């Protein structure tokens, strides 16, 4: 068992933290309020090779894995500037394209994803198929040498920033079970026939979500990723990375919130002593600190398992659960510690709460993780 961090990982964390700190929490809060992506931070980290850290080196990437990508997600968030698209473009899309993309697809997309120039987002959720991907109703039908996509997706993040998106669509039905056969397609963000409409959300996030209408969108057959009907397994290959990166982002948000809270509680005095001297203030922060550290441990384990090619489903789910809960507890305690200032724009904590709160719902909800753990870790009957 080895818990010491190698020097290069420490250097990676320190560098990402230093770059992201130049932007920091106030910059993030401003962008979240205005629904404006932190483009400059993304570009800067991209140039230095941190956005494409898990892209194979033969495609110009860092040749790292989820351990490294999780460090990037954690440290940007710990600097107050979480990057939601790391979960999507860098985690799911890079991992799926690397593993299942054709030689041409990899050569076309990965080098520009390695530098952060091109973002590829991910569309699975549908109005009638949220947590249940078996009910995906968007269809792809092979007509001549193109697939034609029909259907609707919603809550798709960052389509406005992306060059393309990976769309999960139904290409058939399993005869025995009656369940959908799924396939993945690389669709240009400006593909004719794909209309998008921004979803108004009251949560403050830099990234925008879209409802997408596929009205006979023609996708060349060479844009199929991997094998037709093999989509389930392929999606699953991307989902653990998304959960691990999401967990890391949660850990980072938690660290940032607790740092702000502890700084405040050390200096703010209302009864002639710092408010941090009151256990009612200190204990929620201490408890959240414990939870954040535990989540960080499970995140490290999940990333390591994934990188070793070992089953990482259980650890990734647990890490994501723990980190989302820890981030929320940390932000909540930080807001309470700040009293009225906790809600002020000057302290920028409410935008962070939006991000932490999102982590309990997406990319997979808390309840679906508990379902997974109940069924797979405890052997309990599946309830749905």
């Amino acid at each position, binding site marked *: 068992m080895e818990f010491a961090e190698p*020097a290069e990982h420490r*250097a*990676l964390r320190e*560098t990402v933290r230093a770059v992201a700190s130049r932007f920091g929490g106030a910059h993030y809060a401003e962008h979240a309020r205005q629904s404006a992506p932190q483009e400059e931070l993304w570009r800067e980290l991209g140039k*230095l*090779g941190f956005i494409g850290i898990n892209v194979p080196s033969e495609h110009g990437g*860092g*040749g790292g894995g989820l351990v490294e990508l999780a460090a990037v997600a954690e440290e940007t968030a710990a600097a107050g500037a979480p990057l939601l698209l790391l979960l999507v473009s860098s985690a799911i899309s890079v991992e799926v394209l690397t593993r299942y993309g054709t030689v041409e697809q990899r050569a076309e997309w990965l080098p520009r994803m390695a530098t952060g120039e091109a973002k590829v987002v991910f569309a699975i959720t549908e109005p009638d198929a949220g947590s249940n991907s078996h009910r995906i109703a968007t269809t792809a039908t092979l007509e001549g040498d193109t697939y034609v996509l029909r259907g609707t997706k919603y809550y798709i993040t960052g389509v406005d920033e992306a060059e393309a998106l990976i769309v999960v669509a139904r290409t058939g039905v399993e005869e025995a079970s009656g369940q959908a056969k799924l396939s993945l397609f690389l669709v240009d963000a400006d593909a004719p026939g794909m209309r998008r409409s921004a979803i108004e959300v009251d949560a403050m996030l830099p990234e925008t979500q879209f409802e997408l209408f596929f009205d006979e969108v023609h996708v060349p057959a060479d844009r199929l990723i991997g094998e037709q009907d093999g989509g389930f397994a392929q999606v699953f290959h991307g989902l653990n990375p998304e959960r691990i990166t999401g967990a890391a982002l949660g850990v980072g948000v938690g660290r940032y919130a607790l740092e702000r809270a502890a700084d405040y509680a050390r200096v703010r005095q209302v009864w002639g002593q710092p408010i941090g001297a009151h256990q009612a203030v200190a204990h929620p922060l201490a408890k959240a600190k414990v939870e954040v550290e535990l989540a960080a441990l499970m995140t490290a384990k999940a990333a390591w398992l994934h990188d070793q090619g070992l089953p990482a489903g259980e650890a990734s789910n647990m890490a994501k659960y723990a980190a989302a809960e820890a981030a929320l507890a940390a932000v909540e305690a930080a807001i309470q510690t700040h009293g009225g200032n906790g809600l002020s724009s000057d302290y920028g904590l409410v935008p962070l709460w939006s991000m932490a709160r999102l982590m309990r719902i997406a990319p997979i909800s808390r309840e679906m993780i508990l379902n997974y753990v109940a069924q797979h870790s405890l052997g309990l009957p599946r309830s749905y």
Partner: protein
Amino acid sequence: MNVVVCVKQIPDPAAPGALDPQSHTLVREGKLILDDSDAYGVEMGLQLAGDAGEVTLVSMAPNQEVSGVRTALAMGAAKAIVVSDPALKGSDALSTAKVLAKAIERVGADLILAATESTDGYTGTTPVQVAELLGLPSVTFAKKVTVSDGKVRVERQTEAGFDEVECPMPCLVTVTAGVVEPRYPSFKGIMAAKSKPVDQLTVADLGLDASSVGAAGARQEITSVAAAEARGGGDIVVDEGDAHERIVQFLEQLKLV
């Protein structure tokens, strides 16, 4: 062109520092980082060395420490010499200069860069002592450095503005924080730094007599340390229509404008 950059590895200035009760010097145990003021020299060195030349780092540090040196290697320096020796404990600026000068001699540099002063010691005397020991000219407080025809041209920061100075190479130049914007290490740089050569040397390797360095060779001693005076409340300028004039007067007194 080959450039040597002297880099100091210091305790993280963000962490609370401690003084050794006996020697009154900063406790430098544990992890050290690259002194921020040296990042400017490293960047300047990388820019001046160009593709044909290379940057060699020279650092004297306790316990074979390389954390800070790795940062500079990750930025792009080619290799490093780190001098560590129990005999170096208690070194003053001159002892440090002797060690650095001996290490630099092994490299053969066209140009030696250093910061004007370190963030943890602030003596600001080591670099010029290094130059003197090497018998080289030195130029201090550079805010701009260019090289052509075997000469460096330096804009040397002064209180009033800057002097334009020309100096034949090899020479030593100390750079201020404004000289260039240091790059961040890239991920590839960080990974490459792992396998770049770091030559770990002792006082004996350098051919120095242990009695001429460290506490034994120090000509300078810190006899006592006193806490700095608590900061005063400051003057509050209440605007009665002439605040701008009073602020300007105040800044003029401090020679800031």
